[in-house]
């Protein structure tokens, strides 16, 4: 019962703020709503008993990335963008096609789910606390991806520096 409430609350929150993200003309507002969307997602993670992921989401995403975004937005003066048209000329077409895509995905999943043993997921109590679990997975099965991820981040670091710094 509680589950349902939590889920639907966060879900609606996420969707609404997502919509606002793409509709607000002020970039800063979009950023703010993106944060809320991400936080809502974090909530859903929590509801799914993915505590570690919840933390990561809040700290890394809502914390780190969004700060980065806002910082950049501030760096690049906003008021210019306020007076501009925020939607390109063929936005209606884009909207239409995207909705069609959504419909197609819906159909696909609605039909395809019948193949999956959906419905009742494994009860939470049968799982060991997911944090340890994730930790083990990360350092056993996914050791290699973990390493690669580090390279990825290194690349990102270098890249960001190279690109953003005026004078290397």
């Amino acid at each position: 019962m509680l589950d349902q409430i939590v889920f639907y609350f966060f879900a609606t929150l996420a969707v609404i703020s997502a919509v606002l993200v793409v509709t607000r003309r002020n970039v800063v507002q979009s950023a703010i709503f993106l944060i809320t969307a991400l936080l809502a997602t974090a909530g859903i993670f929590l509801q799914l008993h993915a505590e570690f992921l919840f933390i990561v989401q809040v700290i890394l995403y809502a914390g780190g990335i969004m700060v980065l975004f806002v910082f950049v937005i501030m760096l690049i003066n906003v008021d210019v963008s306020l007076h501009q048209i925020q939607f390109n000329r063929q936005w209606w077409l884009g909207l239409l096609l995207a909705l069609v895509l959504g419909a197609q995905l819906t159909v696909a999943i609605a039909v395809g789910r019948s193949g999956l043993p959906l419905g009742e997921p494994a009860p939470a109590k049968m799982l060991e606390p997911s944090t340890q679990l994730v930790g083990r997975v990360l350092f056993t099965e996914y050791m290699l991806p973990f390493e690669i991820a580090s390279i990825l981040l290194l690349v990102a670091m270098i890249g960001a520096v190279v690109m953003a710094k005026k004078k290397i």
Partner: protein
Amino acid sequence: MIPTSHYLFLSLGLFTIGVIGVVTRRNVIVILMSIELMLNAVNINLVAFSRLVGSAEGHAFAIFIITDAAAEAAVGLGIIIAFFRNRETLLGDEMDLLKW
């Protein structure tokens, strides 16, 4: 309990919204954000599935996706700054030096 399909629907909703953002907005930063939304939607899928079978691979996968999102954001914003430095604009459809 909520059937997993609902998570799937939620994620595809967010995904679609992200796509809408990408194809309708002019401001590159917003486009970048929309992409973040899409990745976020992917995460929901992953976690939902992993919950379904009670395994942690999905979580791990999600973590990596987040990492990637972070990296992309960092590089992306760097590039955007470099671009802004030269062009004083953020509008995607004002970038048409390269066309045809």
